[in-house]
């Protein structure tokens, strides 16, 4: 059974970088998949990778992570500025971040607006069919 744990942005809003990363990694280490509203800051994403590497052990092989967010390409300049302002004030609530334990989630493919989540059970079924 796969457990998806939803983390609304309001739950991480008041946390600092260390606390955010710890919260997300704790969920993943318990073999649950995080569905987080919005995305981490870019510097937080690299910190998450670093902290993941620090945490790797016999039981924890790392993470699979993917973010999806609306593209701003077609947006008018005024709307873009307004959106950036709200992002600065309220944080980046757009899109979604998926983080799964590497022992459960084999791969997350983003291509580019579609997400495919491959688990180890999927791979076993595929090889059985062959």
């Amino acid at each position, binding site marked *: 059974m796969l457990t998806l744990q939803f983390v609304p942005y309001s739950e991480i809003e008041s946390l600092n970088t260390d606390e955010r990363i710890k919260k997300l990694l704790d969920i993943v280490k318990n073999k649950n998949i995080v569905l987080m509203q919005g995305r981490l800051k870019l510097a937080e994403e690299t910190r998450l990778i670093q902290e993941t590497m620090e945490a790797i052990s016999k039981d924890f092989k790392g993470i699979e992570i993917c*973010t999806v967010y609306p593209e701003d390409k077609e947006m008018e300049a005024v709307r873009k500025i307004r959106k950036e302002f709200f992002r600065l004030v309220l944080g980046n609530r757009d899109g979604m971040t998926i983080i799964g334990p590497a022992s459960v989630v084999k791969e997350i493919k983003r291509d580019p607006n579609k997400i495919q989540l491959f688990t180890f059970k999927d791979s076993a079924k595929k090889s059985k069919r062959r």
Partner: protein
Amino acid sequence: MIKTIRRYLQDIFFQLFNSKKKIKLGLYGPPNSGKSTLSNRICKDWTGEELSSVSKVPHETRNVNIKESVIIKHKGKELNFNIADTPGIATKIDYEDFLKYMNKGEAKQRAKEATKGVIESIRWLDDMDGVLVVLDSTLNPYSQVNITIIGNLAARNIPVLIVANKIDLKKSNMKKLQSAFPQYNIVGISAEKGTGMDVFYDALFKMFR
């Protein structure tokens, strides 16, 4: 007209002073994308010596390897680089993935060193004057590691050149890479065969103009 004069003066200034300054150039990317093969090709071309060992086994480079004073001459210009070949950045490392290449003890040791290598790579990001993001053009470019590396470099205002490697392979898909990162300059090469190196050096010199 003013732009042309400004560019001309910039070029003179650049040739007088910048050629003496050493530029810290980092090669970043996921494991097995060809960072070491490219850094070896550059170093071999301009110093006669290779920088890193290359292997089919992922995470062959587990420490940042640096070659100092690599002077590259291209179309009448000259730049002096300190080239840093960094370990591949990954979000997961499982020693069992190495078992088909080595025994259990060696695999565990390699996995342990690889995790430290990823941390070291990220720590070095801020020290770079420019970065070559080396991607395997046969793979899906929309991986979070690629997006995170490139996004972080942009946020730190570090000049980036995306190098699409392995274009000699049938599965290579430059168009997909270009559509994934439309705002970046992308050059296609085969570091192993030396294809596209002239275009690569053009883009490299433009990066530091």
